[in-house]
């Protein structure tokens, strides 16, 4: 199970509290995690990445294990501690605006 933490606005949109757990199979990548997330919460389609191109929205960041994974390939394996459920995959709204 992959642990996922959403920013407050997306938790409100998806009507969830706290951390999520997602089953993504053997190949845990940004893409497979987001596929599973959007499948369970369709309202998040388009809110984290573009619906068509699947590109990350500019003011959304992905962190895990104290690293910024935002610029890694969406198909790269996630860190082993995230795959093992020891660390969450953080979806973060960038600090910008007022």
């Amino acid at each position: 199970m992959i642990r996922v933490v959403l920013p407050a606005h997306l938790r409100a949109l998806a009507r969830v509290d706290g951390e999520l757990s997602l089953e993504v199979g053997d190949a845990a990548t940004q893409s497979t995690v987001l596929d599973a997330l959007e499948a369970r919460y369709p309202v998040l389609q388009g809110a984290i990445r573009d619906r068509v191109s699947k590109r990350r929205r500019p003011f959304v960041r992905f962190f895990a294990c104290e690293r910024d994974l935002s610029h890694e390939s969406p198909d790269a394996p996630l860190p082993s501690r995230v795959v093992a459920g020891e660390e969450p995959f953080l979806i973060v709204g960038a600090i910008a605006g007022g």
Partner: protein
Amino acid sequence: MSSVRVLVGTRKGAFVLEADGKRNEWKVDGPFFAGWEIYHVNASPADPNRLYASQTSGWFGQQVQRSDDGGKTWNPVGNAFTYEGAVGTHQWYDGTPRPWEFKRVWHFEPSGSDPDVVYAGVEDASLFRSADGGKTWCELPALRNHGTGASWQPGAGGMCLHTILFDPNDERRIFVAISAAGAFRSDDAGASWRPINRGLVSQYIPEPDAEVGHCVHRLAMHPSRPNVLFMQKHWDVMRTDDGGEQWREISGNLPTDFGFAIDVHAHEPDTVYVVPIKSDSEHFPLDGRLRVYRSRSGGDEWEALENGLPQRDCYVNVLRDAMAVDELDACGIYFGTTGGQVYASADSGESWKAIVRDLPAVLSVEVQTLP
């Protein structure tokens, strides 16, 4: 007894303000969608409990929220706005071609007869339609592709389609306005379009009387006279009596004819309201005095309405979608400011008071008159 419900979109959420027909005591609900920009909330004339809200964010994109109980509860519906066919390009601020890209919904206009049919005016400028209560959206691409689209440029606020008006006698006849392209009309439910900007003169474009390129801020219509439209252009208040074939200026004695909002009295088709703003570089009222101007002659002759409005040190703006009228007798006039006030007049503008004073910056105001 009748009542009114005022739907307010702000920079940080939506609010629903309700009062009985006296319009003295107000109940304020909200914020809904707290922290999100709510560009517009609008109600179906066919079902007053059916509301649509445009919820947007620079971080998380566009959501469309729908209420089926008059704004008490909301549920997200469809947010896939995909341009039809080859996307093509419009002009960017520097004149270079730029592909059309969906950014947000500026305005919802529900059908007068079917609560599941609603039109969305979006940035980058185009018109979308849903026939299933907002679950799915289809572009009406003939507007973007009618021939001048490649020359359209954004206004300072973005290239937005912000006004959608139906001829109440024939909903296939649609008027829209785009900043900064101008006004357009379809007579066949959006299958074909043409610019209706003859008579507009804009000194800020290379050819001041060009077919397109005019920064139209808002159109308004009285339902009894669908061929008469009033326009607040970037500069100039304009009027057409033939469905946009020809416009004439009606700024008359306005102290400044720059502004954003314009609306028409519910029972007097020739009574028009604007909020003059000092200039395109100073978006606040003249002399720090917030005054609505009313013409009872369909333009040219205007009177200042200021009773109850701040007459010193007021430097707010009133945005294009932030004025509305109710259908009670006497007609109520409402507008919201970028300072977070929503002002109401229950006597056609003679006197005003603030319903609320400290909301986030107001982007839009709509009013429902309920039985």
